[in-house]
């Protein structure tokens, strides 16, 4: 059932004239365009710029061994080229000071030398040029290097293609979900090992705009 169908069959809708009816159907048409699902097609090869407005990088870490804390980074940038038959490359830069766990004091603490030391290491950077694809030409794994807190370590991301297709503004977009688990101690972030877990699950939801 489409959005239009829901609206048209909704009971007790006050219809008093042509103008409100046209306004309502216009809004519904706009909504159906914006909310229309992207085609479930394999993304066209080429270079994509990461759309920061539709990309999120979040993390999950154990707190005192009794719960998991969720957080995210609000400022990021990057580009990727995914080509099953040619050269692939992923570059992503995340501002460490944009860490957000919905608690200002904790965010300030996370920016301090205890953790990210954001003033000294303002960005974390992921660079990869090894991408594995499945038979459909969708990426399934990205192997690269993550530079964080002054250290660079190899990191492997498990990738799932979400969709690709034209957007309402004439562009072409492709989206992926990716995740990995890193150890913060590998990056020299050793503070409070008893209270805060060593393993950090990183989850990325990436949308790229074809250039």
């Amino acid at each position, binding site marked *: 059932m489409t959005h239009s169908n829901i609206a048209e069959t909704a009971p007790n809708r006050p219809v008093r004239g042509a103008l409100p009816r046209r306004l309502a159907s216009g809004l519904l048409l706009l909504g159906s365009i914006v909310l229309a699902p992207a085609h479930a097609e394999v993304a066209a090869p080429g270079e994509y710029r990461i759309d920061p407005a539709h990309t999120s990088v979040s993390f999950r870490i154990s707190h005192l061994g009794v719960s998991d804390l969720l957080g995210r980074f609000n400022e990021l940038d990057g580009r990727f080229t995914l080509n099953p038959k040619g050269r692939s490359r992923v570059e992503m830069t995340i501002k460490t000071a944009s860490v957000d766990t919905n608690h200002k004091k904790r965010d300030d*603490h996370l920016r*301090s030398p205890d953790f990210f030391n954001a003033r000294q290491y303002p960005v974390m950077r992921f660079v990869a040029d090894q991408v594995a694809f499945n038979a459909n030409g969708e990426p399934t794994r990205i192997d690269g290097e993550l530079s964080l807190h002054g250290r660079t370590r190899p990191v492997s991301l498990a990738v799932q293609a979400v969709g690709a297709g034209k957007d309402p503004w004439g562009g072409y977009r492709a989206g992926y979900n990716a995740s990995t688990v890193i150890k913060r101690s590998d990056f020299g972030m*050793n503070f409070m090992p008893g209270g805060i877990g060593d393993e950090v699950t990183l989850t990325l939801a990436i949308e790229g705009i074809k250039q």
Partner: protein
Amino acid sequence: MDTNLQLILPTLLLPLGLSALWQCVAPRRPVLWWVLPMAWLPAYLWILGGALPLWPGEAIHWLWPLLLVSVVLAAGLSRSAPRLSLPAQMALLAAALVLIAWPVLRYEPGPALVAELLMLLGAGSGLLVLAARQRVSSPALLLALCSGGLALVTALGGSLLVGQLAAALAALLGAGALAELRGHGQIPARQLLPLWQLYLALLLIARLYAGIPLPSTLLLLVAPLLGGWLRRWPGLAAAGLGSAAALAWLLVSSDGSGYY
């Protein structure tokens, strides 16, 4: 290990124990004075996670070379070339401040940062002069008081790690401060020069990397100067009030969201 124990052991118990041990042995053997500043290193290593950062990557990694060089300068130059000892310590302070601030200077240079560095260098040099000329009465108590204030401000201001390092410095002076309080002698102020260097370096780290407010930083800079200049109880009272005011400023200016 229990989290609280993990915090208390390197921050308070270890340096306090070493301080008491030094107080039992060293005052009768003045040649062992340098052991006290160096006794801060085990706590430093423990707090940092055990490995000595041989090549300084972060600002806090400059602390151990600063301490080591300052002890060597104090031990060597004060005997062979006493007139060079104080200028050498001041030059060391200037070098340490630039090295610690370098990552910020590189990315965010600006007149405000340079002004803060110059202020710290000026006041820090004044402090070193007071200590080197033995003008400071109750030097261990004064430094313990100011380091304790810095530890509280930094830990509540955003960096527990830097706060722990400052608290370990305060605890290392615990036994000496107690002896001064009871009138059982005092450590010569000149011998604490390396620890004053540490205090100033920690204050800069707290300001630049943990983001403690500028007024609190200035109060923690003025407090030991006043303490050394006024001498005895008025000096200690002024230093204590300065540290308390720095903490009060931090608490009043914070956004009020709860600790976690």
